[in-house]
């Protein structure tokens, strides 16, 4: 259940069943409490009814459906025995809180919408969709021209939604997976741009002579403009195609909107253009008397041309902001070379199936995700992870589609194809993020929801003022009071258009999330983007996040004539057969150092203490203090060094060779390369940094000290991590949790912002508001930084958009006229409106040049 109508539907339909006295559905708890007479209706019937409505019914708690049935029967039968009667049943059923927990079947669809021009269109479509029964949520993006709708298919279908949108004067089409293909998207954009450029050019070509003819009296114009261009009939002939050609879209849009009781930018423009055109036509064909000698065709023509210019420029900048998605789509390989029946063949990438063996030669693009089965090469993964250094790939390694094979031939088995590939998942996440809204957008939504009507009211007030008061107080000649008031009123209508307000937030989100995606940072929506700017504390999980999660040898201290490599060789040889992670770390280090290990004999593991073994006929004891004491090994002051190493969070082990202390080997989980840098940068941003770990306090503090972390939450069990995050939140702090997207999922979900780190390729499985594809903690800083810059950009954009309207409306209303005899013409108002949306768009595009 996602909306009030789901609740109402269930209550209504179940309530209509014979024998049901009462049903109360809680949307928050996803529960339905039903009071009923079991003689007349069974729980199964109630469940079936709910299921038929498109919801799922499960018993409360962890019991199965049968258990629920049994429990209900027991309670009701018992009650019936106590005393029959419907009322008794009702009381008992209510007391026993017969609960049906249900989960709605909610589908999500994306619709492509054409014809939107401003924030009011967005508000109008969202309101219409949200008011439909069964629609849980609807988010419309003006720059993307898309609507994402969550709905219950049992209550509403796509066709009904499309009709509702169409009724408002827009066109809507459902987007399929194929629609998101790069070629189709590009073709659609190109067609749209072509029409915008065509209509603007058409309008401009006809408007120039209109402008020249109308301004023929001006000093420069009268030198070259022929007198016939001044003819009202010529101006009429030039203007009419502009109004009925490209200008018709405003009238059609306004009519469709009005038909459904809604007002949008089209209405503003239609009122302005229509009023000046009709006035001019009347002046041309009828003798209206003094004050009405001059037509205003240039106002109608230029107004149309400037608005079309604005729409064209807006489409161009909009195309630039969605470049990130197009770039991602363009990464997809078109073909793949696969081996079938022992033969290599080239097929379309869509035809590759899971399990196919794919061959990729040097320089070629890897078509789908898979696991290398043969070959060795380095692969450029920068397009997915943002990491510029190629990664070596050998048998058993995972490879990601859309990356480029550099120098060797690779054979791999396809594991994920089509919409399951890492690239497809990334595109989906970025698309969803770009269409989502940041909470700050509520200001814009509230503003634009009622703005158009407010502007018309304001235009009416301005008209009244100048008609009754202004025209008699201030000289408005040569115009009549009506004409002066009319053009002031039109200027108010045109200059107030909220098109910049509608672009301010979504464009910035598109650029911000797109820039982040290029760096391998997937921000899952506007809410995450805004949330990341308000953080107080960043909590890092220790193992696997701050540290590599694998123990490694950190110190080798040799005494009594032994040297480091020899000591390490003896220790590693003794541990050869060990399966303990500390032993493995010692063996790995010895192998890395190229030491020749000897096979041990008489290997004995002493649990909790260490090991003993013979290496090259020498007895080796490797372990803790207790083991050394038991074996009566004199440690020659090594205890102090051991304490020192322990305080650094390391695990030191004594080594005795032939019953004589030979030194210490210390092992620790080492920090990742950029952990300290990331923490330092977070401090620079003014954030508190905490570490959460199951380790003991001493080890935890030692690690925290190395990276410069302020707060340590040690000895926290994995299942308690979410509680620790909650405790921080209860202190009034906004918390980000950085950890593994799968193991730390509860803590990530609890945090205000969950940042899943180093997820590799299966990004869709990740919990977290932000997913970092590569294992680099500096991306935590980058994601906060990109969020802050995007939010700043949104604030700047909203400021400029509101500033233009706030400053423009009084100017349009003629506030300057009493002082300097200046009034904004409708066509100048249109230019100001174009400048407003252009400045917002360019300000957003500027962000694309910034680095994070």
């Amino acid at each position, binding site marked *: 259940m996602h909306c009030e109508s789901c609740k109402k539907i269930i209550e209504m339909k179940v309530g209509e069943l014979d024998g049901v006295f009462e049903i109360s559905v809680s949307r928050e708890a996803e529960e339905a409490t039903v009071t009923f007479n079991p003689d007349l209706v069974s729980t199964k019937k109630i469940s079936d009814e709910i299921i038929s409505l498109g919801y799922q019914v499960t018993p409360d708690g962890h019991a199965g459906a049968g258990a629920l049935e049994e429990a209900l029967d027991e309670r009701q039968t018992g009650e019936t025995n106590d005393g029959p009667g419907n009322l008794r049943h009702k009381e008992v059923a209510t007391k026993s809180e017969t609960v049906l927990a249900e989960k709605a079947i909610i589908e999500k669809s994306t619709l492509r919408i054409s014809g939107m021009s401003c924030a009011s269109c967005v508000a109008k479509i969202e309101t219409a969709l949200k008011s439909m029964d069964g629609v849980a949520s609807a988010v419309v993006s003006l720059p993307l021209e898309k609507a994402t709708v969550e709905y219950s298919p049992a209550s509403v279908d796509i066709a009904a939604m499309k009709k509702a949108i169409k009724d408002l004067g827009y066109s809507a089409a459902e987007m399929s997976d194929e629609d998101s293909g790069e070629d189709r998207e590009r073709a659609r954009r190109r067609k749209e741009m072509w029409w915008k450029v065509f209509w603007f050019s058409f309008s401009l070509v006809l408007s120039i002579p209109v402008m020249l003819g109308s301004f023929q009296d001006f000093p420069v114009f009268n030198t070259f403009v022929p007198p016939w261009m001044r003819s009202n009939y010529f101006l009429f002939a030039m203007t009419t195609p502009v109004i009925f050609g490209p200008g018709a879209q405003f009238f059609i849009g306004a009519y469709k909107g*009005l038909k459904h*009781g*809604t*007002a949008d930018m089209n*209405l503003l423009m239609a*009122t302005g253009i229509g*009023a000046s055109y009709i*006035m001019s036509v009347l002046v041309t064909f009828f003798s*209206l*008397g*003094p*004050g*009405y000698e001059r037509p205003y065709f240039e106002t109608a023509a230029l107004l149309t041309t400037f608005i079309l210019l604005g729409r064209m420029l807006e489409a161009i900048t909009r195309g630039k902001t969605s470049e990130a998605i197009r770039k991602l789509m363009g990464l997809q390989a078109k073909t793949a070379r696969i081996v079938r029946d022992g033969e290599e063949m080239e097929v379309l990438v869509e035809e590759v199936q899971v399990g196919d063996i794919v061959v990729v030669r040097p320089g070629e693009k890897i078509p789908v995700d898979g696991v290398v089965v043969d070959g060795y090469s380095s692969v450029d993964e920068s397009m997915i992870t943002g990491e510029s250094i190629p990664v070596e790939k050998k048998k058993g390694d995972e490879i990601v589609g859309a990356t480029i094979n550099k120098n060797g031939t690779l054979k791999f088995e396809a594991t994920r194809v089509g919409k399951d590939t890492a690239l497809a998942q990334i595109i989906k996440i970025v698309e969803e993020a770009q269409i989502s809204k940041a909470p700050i957008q509520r200001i814009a939504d509230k503003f634009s929801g009622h703005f*158009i*009507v407010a502007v*018309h*009211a304001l*235009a*009416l007030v301005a*008209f*009244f003022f100048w*008609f*009754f008061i202004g025209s*008699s107080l201030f000289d408005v000649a040569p115009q*009549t*009071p*009506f004409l002066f*008031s*009319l053009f002031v*009123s039109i200027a108010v209508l045109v200059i107030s258009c909220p098109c910049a307000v509608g672009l301010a937030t979504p464009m910035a989100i598109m650029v911000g999330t797109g820039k982040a995606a290029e760096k391998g940072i997937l921000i899952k929506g506007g809410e995450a983007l805004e949330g990341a700017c308000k953080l107080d504390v960043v909590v890092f999980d220790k193992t696997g996040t701050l540290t590599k999660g694998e123990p490694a040898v950190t110190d080798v201290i040799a005494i009594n004539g032994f040297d480091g490599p020899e000591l390490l060789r003896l220790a590693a040889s003794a541990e050869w057969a060990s399966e303990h992670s500390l032993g493995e770390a010692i063996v790995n280090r010895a192998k890395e150092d190229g030491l020749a290990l000897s096979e041990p004999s008489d290997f004995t593991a002493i649990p909790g203490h260490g090991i003993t073994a013979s290496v090259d006929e020498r007895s080796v004891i490797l372990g803790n203090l207790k083991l050394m004491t038991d074996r009566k090994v004199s440690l020659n002051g090594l205890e102090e060094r051991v304490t020192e190493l322990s305080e650094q969070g390391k695990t030191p082990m004594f080594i005795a060779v032939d019953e004589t202390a030979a030194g210490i080997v210390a092992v620790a989980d080492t920090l990742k390369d950029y952990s300290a840098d990331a923490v330092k940068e977070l401090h620079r941003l003014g954030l508190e940094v905490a570490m959460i770990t199951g380790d003991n306090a001493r080890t935890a503090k030692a690690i925290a000290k190395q990276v410069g972390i302020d707060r340590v939450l040690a000895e926290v069990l994995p299942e308690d991590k979410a509680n620790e995050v909650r405790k921080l939140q209860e202190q009034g702090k906004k918390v980000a949790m950085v950890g593994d997207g799968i193991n730390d999922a509860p803590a990530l979900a609890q945090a205000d912002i969950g940042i899943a780190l180093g997820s590799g390729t299966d990004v869709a499985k990740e919990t977290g508001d932000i997913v970092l594809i590569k294992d680099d903690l500096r991306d935590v800083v980058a994601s906060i930084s990109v969020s802050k810059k995007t939010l700043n950009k949104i604030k700047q954009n909203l400021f400029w958009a509101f500033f233009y309207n706030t400053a423009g409306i009084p100017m349009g209303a003629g506030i300057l006229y009493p002082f300097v005899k200046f009034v904004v013409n409708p066509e100048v108002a249109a230019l100001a409106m174009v400048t407003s949306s252009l400045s917002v768009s360019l300000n957003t595009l500027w962000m694309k040049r910034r680095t994070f």
Partner: protein
Amino acid sequence: MAEIKTRGALLGSLAASVVLTISFYLLATALGRYGKLDIYMASIYVLVLSMIVSASVIPPLLKKRQGGS
């Protein structure tokens, strides 16, 4: 039922606009400083703008008064 309500709201909007336009016309005529054409043209413009405003404002107000039903 819904259609009747919609029609009622529309009639309400139209009535409000007509009342405003007539008031405008009477006031402009009473002041006596405007030409006939100015008054006629202005009245038409006022009617159009006030219809746009009232058609957007009055139906929700009526709905609110009826308790959102």
